[in-house]
Every structure is written in structure tokens, then in C-alpha cells.
């Protein structure tokens, strides 16, 4: 047997493929993302149908547990000092909050109810709105109970969470000049509770997390997990925007029944718009519909003269705004 004098030339393409990897990559990505988005859609629709069937009592049972904890942790009990629990922690624990302002602020829960008079005024306004809600087309289902809380926090925000708990920050009171604007925000949050949105978000979030875990649990590519998570989140936030629109529409019904007009309802939105601006092109990444569209929708439903910034250009035909309760107004001037 004669030995080789030179190494043979081995043909290419046996151990590696000459095909452009981009082609394979795009096919894979399209397939996986499409499947995932479809699955998230399916789960979201399921959550939307089934979550409202969960009895409201169960929601309340969950939040009662939390309220007990909160009372134990209150500074009155003279316990050794500990890290103050923030509302954000609680919100993430409860998993489901429907914010009017998507930026979640840090809040100390031990500041809850520092303003008893204002909190009472808020409660009374809520109850008046509830009676109007009962008269309006957006009738609440039975067993729903609302609890209104005032939080000392400068960021204007309001949100509803499990068990019918509605939180309003003092920062929101400082940017609203009329009761109508506050009533719009409150009715919006009450509509979230009424439509069982918090429990829907919670169920949807839990299902989607479960799905993502099931898909990516066995593997290590963190980058991939992040892109799959993004696809899931973007799909979910479209549902979240639908909820906001639904709550806006219900709030309009309540306001019409309560005041007979929609004057001042857009005040808070206008305020947020002038402060933060708006961007139509990135609406699809947000949990809330863009502000201009919400204002536009309000105007078309109101079918009346609406002021641009809550009172400056009140025309002859515009109905008068109801002034803010002095107890609520007092907070604004307080340091």
C-alpha cells in the first residue's frame, strides 16, 4: 500500500452549509413569534371570558388579607422600624393594577389616609358617582364594592386594583381644578373594577408568564427569552389599551348621568398631554391608548363644546364646571 503524498482536497459543504444563515433565522423567528403571539391572543381572550366569572368575593378575600398585613405594619403598632413597603411592591404582588398614568410611582403605604378629611371627601364623591353609575347605562354588577384611598404622592396618578380598591394620589388632586376632572378619573377607575379588569389583567399576566416559562424554560439563551417576552408583552398591551377605552366609555356614561354634560372631563388628559406630550407611532408599545385619541373620543361622545384646558376659554354655551370640594382643594395648597 502506497502512502499519501499530499492531503486530499475534501469537497466543501459536507460539514457546514453554505446557505445564508439569515434566511433560516428569519423563517425561524417568524414562525416562533407568530405561534407565540397566537397563543398569547388565545390566552388573553380566555382570560377576558373566564376571569369575570371569578366571584368578586374571592378578590376581596385576597385584598382583605393584604389589608390585615397593612394594619399590622402601620407605625401605630410601635414595631421595630423596617423597610417601608411600597405600593409598587404590593401592586406587583397583586399583579393587577389598572393605572390612569402608566408611570408607576414609588409610594409609601404608611402614608395612606394621612389626610382624613380629604380622604372622606374622596369617598363621598365616589359614592355619589356610584349612585349615578347605578342610574346610568354603565350599571355596576352586583356584589361590587368600591374602596377609595388617597395616597400622599406628588406624581399625578390613579389606579384600580383587586377587590375594588381605587387609589388616587394627592398629585392628581393638585393638577385637577374641577370636580368634573376628578370625577372622570374616578369613574374611569370604577369602570375598571366594574368590568373586572384587574382580575383579567392578573389572569392574563399569569397565563402568559406560564406560557413563556413553558416555551423558554429549558434553555439558556437570555436574549431569546427577552425577545419572546417582548412579543408577549406587546400583544398583552393591546388588550390593556382596549380596557382603557372601555373604561373611558363607561366613565362618560357615568359623567353624563351625574352632571348632564362632559365639560371638564378631558382636563386631566389635557394636563398629561401638555406635560408629557404624545406619540402616535409608539402607541403599540404602551399600555394606554394615546392621549390625543382619548380626548378626541371624549369630545365626539360629549358632542358639546369642550374647553381646551379645563376652563380658560369657557364659552357662552359651555355648562359650568363644579368646583373641587374644599377639603380636596386644601391638599393642593398644603406644603
Amino acid at each position, binding site marked *: 500500500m502506497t*502512502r*499519501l*503524498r*499530499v*492531503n486530499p*482536497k475534501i469537497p466543501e459543504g459536507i*460539514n*457546514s*452549509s453554505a*446557505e445564508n*444563515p*439569515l434566511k*433560516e*433565522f428569519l423563517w*425561524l*423567528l417568524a*414562525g*416562533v413569534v407568530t405561534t407565540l403571539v397566537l397563543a398569547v391572543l388565545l390566552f388573553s381572550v380566555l382570560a377576558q371570558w373566564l376571569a369575570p366569572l371569578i366571584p368578586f368575593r374571592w378578590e376581596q378575600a385576597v385584598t382583605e388579607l393584604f389589608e390585615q398585613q397593612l394594619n399590622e405594619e402601620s407605625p401605630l403598632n410601635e414595631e421595630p422600624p423596617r423597610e417601608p413597603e411600597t405600593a409598587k411592591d404590593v401592586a406587583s404582588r397583586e399583579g393587577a393594577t389598572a393605572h390612569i398614568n402608566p408611570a408607576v410611582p414609588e409610594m409609601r403605604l404608611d402614608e395612606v389616609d394621612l389626610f382624613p378629611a380629604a380622604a372622606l371627601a374622596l369617598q363621598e364623591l365616589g359614592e355619589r358617582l356610584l349612585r349615578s353609575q347605578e342610574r346610568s347605562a354603565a350599571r355596576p354588577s352586583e356584589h361590587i364594592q368600591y374602596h377609595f384611598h388617597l395616597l400622599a404622592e406628588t406624581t399625578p396618578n390613579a389606579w384600580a386594583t383587586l377587590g375594588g380598591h381605587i387609589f388616587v394620589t394627592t398629585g392628581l388632586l393638585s393638577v385637577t381644578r374641577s370636580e368634573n376632572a376628578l370625577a372622570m378619573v374616578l369613574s374611569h377607575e370604577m369602570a375598571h373594577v366594574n368590568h373586572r379588569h384587574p382580575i383579567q389583567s392578573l389572569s392574563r399576566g399569569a397565563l402568559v408568564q406560564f406560557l413563556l416559562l413553558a*416555551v*423558554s424554560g429549558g*434553555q*439558556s*439563551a*437570555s*436574549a*431569546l427569552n*427577552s*425577545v419572546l417576552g*417582548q412579543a408577549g*408583552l*406587546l400583544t398583552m*398591551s393591546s388588550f390593556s389599551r382596549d380596557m382603557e377605552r372601555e373604561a373611558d366609555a363607561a366613565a362618560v356614561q357615568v359623567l353624563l348621568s351625574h352632571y348632564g354634560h362632559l365639560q371638564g372631563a378631558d382636563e386631566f388628559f389635557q394636563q398629561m398631554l401638555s406635560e408629557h406630550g404624545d406619540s402616535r407611532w*409608539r402607541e403599540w*408599545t*404602551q399600555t394606554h391608548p394615546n392621549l390625543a385619541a382619548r380626548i378626541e373620543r371624549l369630545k365626539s361622545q360629549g358632542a358639546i363644546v369642550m374647553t381646551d384646558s379645563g376652563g380658560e376659554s369657557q364659552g357662552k354655551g359651555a355648562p359650568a364646571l363644579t368646583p373641587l370640594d374644599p377639603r380636596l382643594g386644601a391638599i393642593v395648597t398644603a406644603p
Partner: protein
Amino acid sequence: MEALLQLGVFLTLLLCGYVFGRRAERKHYQSIFQREDELRHIVVTTERVPEPEFLQHRFHLVNGSVVISVDYFKVVAAGLRSLIGGRITAYESLLDRARREALLRMQEQARTMGAETIINTKFETSRVSGNAGQGLGSMEVLVYGTALIPVGGRT
């Protein structure tokens, strides 16, 4: 906004991985083809026993090792593939390059010793800078064999 930012970072990394990874791969293959032709006379076999004509030759251990990093694009492509199954072609070309480069380095070493041939060639591969489930990994290929050097050749 946060979602958009993350998506942007991801796409940028992906694009960088693709552009630079492709460029590196193309250049590497060019270099491999060229050097394989240059070193074709250093015959590499897996024969364990030397041919009778080499019985008077000196022998020496030669080895070549190479470490190649995975790029971001390949990681993501492989991650997607692992959801479905099948050939991870992105890694196949990486392994192919590493194996051939290691052989070339061993041949290069044998040439500087004046060797005619290398027998008993073995391959080993391992993952270095083991990524422990995150980040990018890189792979090592080690090839070693026995160089047979004619007496009177260079040392």
C-alpha cells in the same frame, strides 16, 4: 418606551453579531482554503503505526488548538432552533472552522520541525469560558498527533 428600547438594543446586537460574524467567517474561510493548499504536503493521517519507510524518522508531539467565540446572532439563531429542533447550521460552520484551523496550526508546527507527515491524529473539543447558562460561549478544538521528522531534517 422601555419595550421599544429593549427591542432596539436587541436588534442592534443582532445586527452587529450578524455583520461582524459573517465578515469574520468569510475571511477565515478564505485564509483556511489558502493555507490548506500551502500545507497539503504535510500529510495528516490517523494511522497509529508508522509506515516502514518512516522507521528511521524521529518523532515528536505536535498540536494545534483554537478558540472561537460564538457571536450574538448565532446564539439567537441556535436558541430559536432549539425550540423546534434540527440542524443548528450556525454552529456547524463554527465547528468546521475551528477543526480545520486547529489542523492547520498543527501542520504549521510540524512544518517548522521539518516533518513529512503526522500520524495518530486525535481531536478533542470543549467549551471554554463556559457561559453557565448566560452570555456568549466559545468553543475550543484541540488536535494533536505524532510528527515524523526525517533524520537530518530541521529540529
